[in-house]
């Protein structure tokens, strides 16, 4: 007991080394201690654990080695400007900045789309009759790096436009702008492959992204159109990493390579399952860097899904104006997925696009090479 009292007294001392030594002695003694004393010692020992501080080691940035890397996909060729997606060799820029910044592609439709939310419609009201004008405005006024032309009008229940009409719309947009195109169909599994084939032929050698191939339609036809006319393919799986792997494998069997495929792991919007997309996209990118060759393609996000959320469109006094809620919903949805590694975003609202780009562009810079303001007195300087 005497010894314990002595040791307890020692504990009051803050000297590290003594405490360390004490703990070793203490372990041998523990069995003989009475419960009450145990408790006191227990508390004292906790303090000891806390205070046990190793000698200072140097700060070392936690940089990993990655055996794999993300393939680089070129979009735009022929009369188009070129845009590159992917190419990351690391997860974060402090490890190695990514070679290409994330890209935003503006949604444009082959029909006027009266159903678009008002905050978007008001920016494009004057050009909605002509996809070419619409695309031009997106590029000229809002600085789009790319344009997605959705051939919604080909839907059998929409306007049932023929593949030939679709090809004409593609030609119109190709004439109007010189950025690369994503070509989307209407979502009809029977008709989409035929429409995409005609569109691909109309845009031969311009390296567009055909959207999309999935397991519910004739993905072989889509893949073949891409191979024949020199395009890339969007490989779409529904928040399911195994489905994604399978589809990518099938597409590569059809003659596409890693450099011809972009993945769409599905964007669940903010509040509508975004956490599922976060998990799937994070795992996909980590798998790529770990060396899974079936998942080493850049990723895409249909960020416009955000506008389907009630918080984005529903009129409700106590939530504030939809004019602000809509764009924020799109920003937060896209941004969250950008932080999980997404390389290309399909978006609708000019302001959302601007915000996303601003943050995305930092991904290609080295750590600590940007000039930052002095914030050391923010507590009193903030208004």
């Amino acid at each position: 007991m005497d010894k314990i009292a002595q040791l307890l007294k020692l504990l009051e001392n803050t000297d590290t080394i003594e405490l360390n030594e004490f703990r070793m002695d203490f372990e041998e003694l523990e069995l003989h201690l009475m419960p009450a004393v145990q408790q006191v010692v227990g508390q004292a020992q906790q303090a000891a654990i806390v205070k046990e501080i190793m000698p200072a080691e140097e700060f070392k940035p936690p940089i990993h080695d990655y055996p794999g890397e993300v393939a680089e996909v070129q979009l735009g060729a022929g009369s188009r400007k070129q845009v590159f997606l992917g190419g990351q060799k690391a997860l974060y820029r402090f490890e190695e900045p990514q070679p290409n910044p994330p890209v935003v592609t503006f949604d444009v439709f082959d029909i006027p789309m009266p159903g678009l939310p008002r905050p978007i419609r008001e920016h494009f009201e004057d050009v909605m009759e002509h996809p070419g004008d619409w695309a031009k405005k997106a590029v000229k006024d809002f600085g789009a790096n790319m344009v997605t032309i959705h051939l919604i009008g080909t839907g059998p229940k929409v306007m049932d436009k023929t593949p030939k009409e679709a090809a004409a719309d593609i030609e119109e947009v190709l004439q109007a702008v010189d950025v690369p195109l994503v070509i989307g169909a209407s979502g009809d599994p029977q008709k989409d492959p035929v429409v995409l084939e005609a569109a691909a032929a109309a845009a031969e050698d311009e390296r567009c992204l055909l959207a999309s191939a999935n397991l519910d339609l004739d993905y072989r036809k889509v893949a073949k159109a891409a191979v024949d006319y020199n395009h890339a393919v969007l490989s779409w799986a529904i928040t399911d990493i195994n489905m994604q792997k399978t589809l990518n494998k099938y597409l590569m069997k059809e003659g596409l390579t890693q450099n011809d495929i972009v993945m769409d792991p599905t964007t669940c919007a903010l509040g509508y399952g975004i956490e599922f997309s976060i998990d799937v996209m994070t795992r996909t990118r980590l798998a790529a860097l770990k060396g899974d060759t079936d998942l080493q393609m850049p990723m895409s996000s249909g960020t416009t899904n955000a506008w389907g959320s009630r918080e984005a469109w529903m009129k409700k006094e106590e939530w504030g104006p939809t004019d602000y809620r809509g764009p924020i919903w799109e920003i937060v949805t896209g941004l969250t997925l950008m932080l999980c590694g997404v390389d290309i975003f399909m978006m609708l609202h000019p302001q959302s696009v601007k915000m996303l780009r601003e943050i995305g562009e930092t991904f290609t810079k080295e750590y600590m090479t940007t000039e930052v303001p002095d914030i050391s007195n923010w507590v009193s300087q903030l208004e």
Partner: protein
Amino acid sequence: MAVTAMDVYKLLPKTNCAKCGEASCMAFATKLKDKEIGLEICTQLAANEFDKLADILAPAVREISIGKGAKAMIAGGDEVLYRYELTYYNQTPLVIDISDDMDEAAFDERVKKIEEIQFERTGELLTLDAIALRNKSGDASRFKEAAEKLKNANLALVLCSFDADAMKAALEAVGDERPLIYGATENNIEEMATLALEYDCPVALFVPNDLEKMKELSRTLRAKGITDIVLDPGTYVNAGIGDTLDDFIMIRRLAVEERDEDFRFPIMGVPALTWLNTEEDEVNTAIKEATIATTLINKYADIMIIHGTEIWELIPVLTLRQSIFTDPRKPQAVDAGVYEIGEVNEDSPVALTTNFALTYYTVEGDLKSGNANGYLLVLDTEGRAVDVAVAGGQFNGKAVADLIKESGIEDDVKTRKMVIPGLAAPTSGEIEDDTGWEVVVGPRDSSALADFLKEKV
């Protein structure tokens, strides 16, 4: 590195006495590791054994409580870098700033606004957590007075001043409420550390964009016996956001993967800095602040100070926080069965939905705000939305027939007619076949359901 059940088991008594309610020590160890049970449930541990276990079970990021009693909030507690690996713990507390130089009326109004902001989502009331008082006046007594006033607020407190005298004055007023001291810097660390120890309060370390120095100062605080530390590596909102992200991510990696003791603390983000020298108008600044806040929530902010109080700015931040902190191991579901909406009797209409929490609460909310009366049958789709469950096969005729039988709805109502969601239209035939009920396909969005029930059923 994360502990395994085996690491934990080795330190348990290994007697399998089952007093903890588990069949064996190994079973208890597994639950401990998954944080499904508390260590104190095993009563067979000596104090030192307890401490040792508590130490290895301590989360990678220390949990720090700020405020006391009903006002208390917890920052930190995370174990993993990615939520799919386990789950994230303790929703990032959202703190709104207020300055000590405001006139009384404006001050009170802002406090009231902060306290009252709320947004209901999937049956949960999302609110803010604390108030950060800024010593903008630079005056110690004003800071103290304002702090005194905040005693009456029903939220936890963060005291922001780099002046140790002002901090001391404020702590004299509210030091017994466990406010977060913000903050210690290279210049005032000795004084702030003394105050943190004297008042037993957590302290934030503010070291912009210099992790090397951050590590050094964290060590300094720890050497003084301070255990409750929050790390603020600075929040840059323009091109500098890249550095901020790097800093946040590096701190968290060092904590989780390398168990670097100097970094095993919650990280603070300050999106409020968006308002510092902004050239944009208020709306754009608020949108940008929400952008910065959500960026930082995504990458490890464990507590954040925000300036804007517009509800449309906060809704996305609250929603993202709620989403990210759901537990991926559990479906977000309500109990299946019959729910009564409004006044019901044997002639009331019956509608069908799924037990996915978002779906259920959306439908329930729509019915209530539309003053509808009727029964809502809630199908167990293992927490899946309508079209997800239709696509996945959980929403089918047999399941609905079972629900009708088990819920006893046929005793409650005379009708044998139910409204199903528009998105479940493909299942209407099989539901009719399996239940013998007549099926009416309702609107696609439940916002139209209340009127639909009144007019069509």
